[in-house]
């Protein structure tokens, strides 16, 4: 295609000699054919367009790399108490039995701290691994002196080793994966070394569960109404227009709506007081998982409706007509033919919307997700925090170690979203295969 333009002009001109006296091309002085220059410009911009595209991919790679870089790397730890001094009967700390560890703890802990730990779970019943961990946290008290990223840790190992030796004498250098099983399975604590995402993870799952339970049926029902039932009148056009506008409303506005309606207005319901729940000293007022889930449901409702409409629109009219022709009612047609036939598309759209809800932070800050919460949520009337909230909290801390756990939490969040999408794709393919074989 590219070559056609120049040859067409240059080939035609000389091959028609009798026309040479009356040239085709305008002879104004500012008209220049300048093919070489035009092609040079064309190639330059072609390169520029390509670079812009490559640039966006490079950016995505940088984003992922930054997160991975922050989630792993060397850590320099300085212990407040030398673990060697905690040896008992000549046995090193690592090899001590539960009994020995318990004695050490009872001797060295302050009475108040010991009582607090005893209340959580009696020391005598804890296994040795737990007690060992406890000795490390409570007595050895390792503090982070410096942290490094993954790339530094791989390529500049020698420098890091030398630096940690000179700057922090007596320090321990170890490679740490900030995202690890412990991080996944412990509740939130104030210290970056011992904290975990279980509280936030549970919060996210419960919130999303409510969002799906509310938004999915409501959204699909609305889509069915608009596509299959609604006649073209002013009211239905208004509803449609309104849905398009709602899809463009900033998420923070939904947060304000949730704050005023769910948290304040419907407090007896959302706090669970009406059902006699949540009164066990843990006063959440309306700032509960239920409020958050409902707010997010309103937020993704327009997206689900629009996707659902597109899914229904993609079904050929013959399916409707043949169902109606054999005497099915409208609802029978919708329920037994249209919904099953569009299920794969509906599913894909819903997963997209739910992914958006999982990553949403702003409305949850506004309706009052807890910033620090050591208790895992127990039900829909609990106070809560979610993964994005946790990332927000940790990122806004100035200390570098919080940056590392923020990166680890981001990996957890992205992993959750990725697995949800993978699940949707697998289910969709299965549905399509079933339909083809049927």
């Amino acid at each position, binding site marked *: 295609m590219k070559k056609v333009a120049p040859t067409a002009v240059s080939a035609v001109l000389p091959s028609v000699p009798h026309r040479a006296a009356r040239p085709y091309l305008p002879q104004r002085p500012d008209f220049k054919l300048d093919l070489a220059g035009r092609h040079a410009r*064309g190639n330059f911009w072609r390169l520029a367009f390509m670079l812009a595209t490559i640039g966006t991919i490079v950016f995505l790679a940088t984003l992922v790399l930054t997160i991975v870089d922050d989630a792993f790397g060397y850590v320099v730890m300085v212990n407040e108490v030398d673990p060697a001094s905690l040896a008992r009967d000549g046995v090193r700390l690592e090899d001590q039995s539960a009994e020995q560890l318990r004695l050490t703890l009872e001797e060295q802990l302050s009475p108040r701290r010991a009582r607090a730990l005893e209340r959580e779970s009696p020391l005598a019943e804890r296994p040795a691994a737990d007690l060992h961990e406890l000795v490390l946290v409570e007595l050895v008290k390792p503090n982070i002196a410096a942290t490094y990223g993954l790339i530094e840790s791989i390529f500049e190992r020698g420098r890091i080793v030398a630096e940690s030796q000179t700057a922090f004498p007596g320090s321990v250098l170890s490679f740490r994966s900030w995202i690890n099983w412990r991080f996944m399975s412990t509740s939130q604590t104030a210290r970056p070394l011992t904290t975990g995402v279980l509280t936030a993870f549970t919060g996210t799952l419960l919130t999303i569960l409510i969002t799906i339970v509310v938004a999915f049926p409501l959204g699909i029902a609305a889509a069915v109404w608009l596509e299959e039932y609604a006649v073209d009148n002013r009211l239905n056009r208004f509803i449609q227009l309104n849905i398009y506008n709602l899809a463009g409303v900033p998420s923070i506005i939904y947060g*304000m709506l949730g704050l005023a309606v769910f948290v304040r207005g419907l407090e007896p319901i959302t706090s669970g007081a009406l059902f006699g729940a949540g009164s066990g000293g843990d006063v959440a007022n309306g700032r509960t998982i239920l409020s958050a889930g409902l707010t997010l449901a309103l937020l993704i409702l*327009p997206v689900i409706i629009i996707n659902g409409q597109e899914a229904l629109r993609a079904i050929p009219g013959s399916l409707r007509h043949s169902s109606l022709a054999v005497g099915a009612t409208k609802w029978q047609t919708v329920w037994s033919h249209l919904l099953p036939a569009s299920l794969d598309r509906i599913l894909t759209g819903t997963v997209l919307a739910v992914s958006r809800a999982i990553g949403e932070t702003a409305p949850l800050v506004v309706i009052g997700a807890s910033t620090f919460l050591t208790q895992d949520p127990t039900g829909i009337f609990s106070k809560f925090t979610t993964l994005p909230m946790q990332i927000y909290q940790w990122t806004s801390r100035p200390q570098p170690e919080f940056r590392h756990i923020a990166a680890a939490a981001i990996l957890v969040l992205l992993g959750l979203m990725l697995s949800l999408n993978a699940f949707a794709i697998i289910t969709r393919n299965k549905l399509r295969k079933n339909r083809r074989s049927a």
Partner: protein
Amino acid sequence: MHTKVQAHYPEERQRRISFRRRLRPAELLIQSFLFFCAAVSILTTLGIVLVLGRESFAFFGEVSLKQFFGGTVWQPTIGLFGIWPLLNATLMTSLTAMLVALPIGLAVAIYLAEYASEKVRETLKPILEVLAGVPTIVYGYFALTVVTPLLRRVFGADTVEVYNTLSAGLVMGILILPLISSMCEDALSAVPRGLREAAYAMGATKLETSVRIIVPAAFSGIASAFILGLSRAVGETMIVALAAGAGSNFTFNPFRAAETMTGHIVRISGGDISYDSMDYRSLFAIALVLFLVTLFLNILSRAIVKKYREVYE
């Protein structure tokens, strides 16, 4: 015609079957339920308008509109509620974002629609979708931990503050880029093939065809993408909350910290706030302005497409 309904089939004549329209209460019930679900969207809009309106009304009972839209200081502690510092910061971050997103987004769209082969396009589009699916909080993290330190190294730590609107704006531009590029690509692909072929036949190069023929033909789509992107940028929250800074500041310097409207709402509502205080109500007044601005932009975006779209046969 007979006045009586004529029975054509023996079964019907014997009253064993009827083809007449029956009243089906269950169908009606389902139908009204479906309508109710669709009407929830109207209730949502009504809820937003009522909530924002009521609290703002109480707010404007104490602060005059002139003070609100004329003041250049936002200091709720001493009773100064001038929205300009917040509005200005919002405009600065949004415009920075558009300066990044529009040229790059359009370039990506032109590449995908005009230059890239089918295979390349099919690989690149999902990547852009991934970029669009990353939660905004992750972008905020990136702005604060990567872009800001980079800016400080390039321009000097003395000129660039730890929190600044430039960093937030740049990253926001990348956030909006996939939206713009996919909308522009749709607009460019919708231009009929005949226009391209006519341009080539006249001897235009590929670049000339793309830039002088296709882009102008798709102008309405591109303009609406731009406006929708702007609306998205104005309402974007977490990036500015993390990277643009806390505390209102009326400045035109992109290297300095300034709080946007959304950033202010998040910071104040994230703390302990008592209901029915002026602080609480001022948030709703800001949210009302935000709502109206984004609504206006969204409607404008759709109106442009509707009015200026070139209709091809």
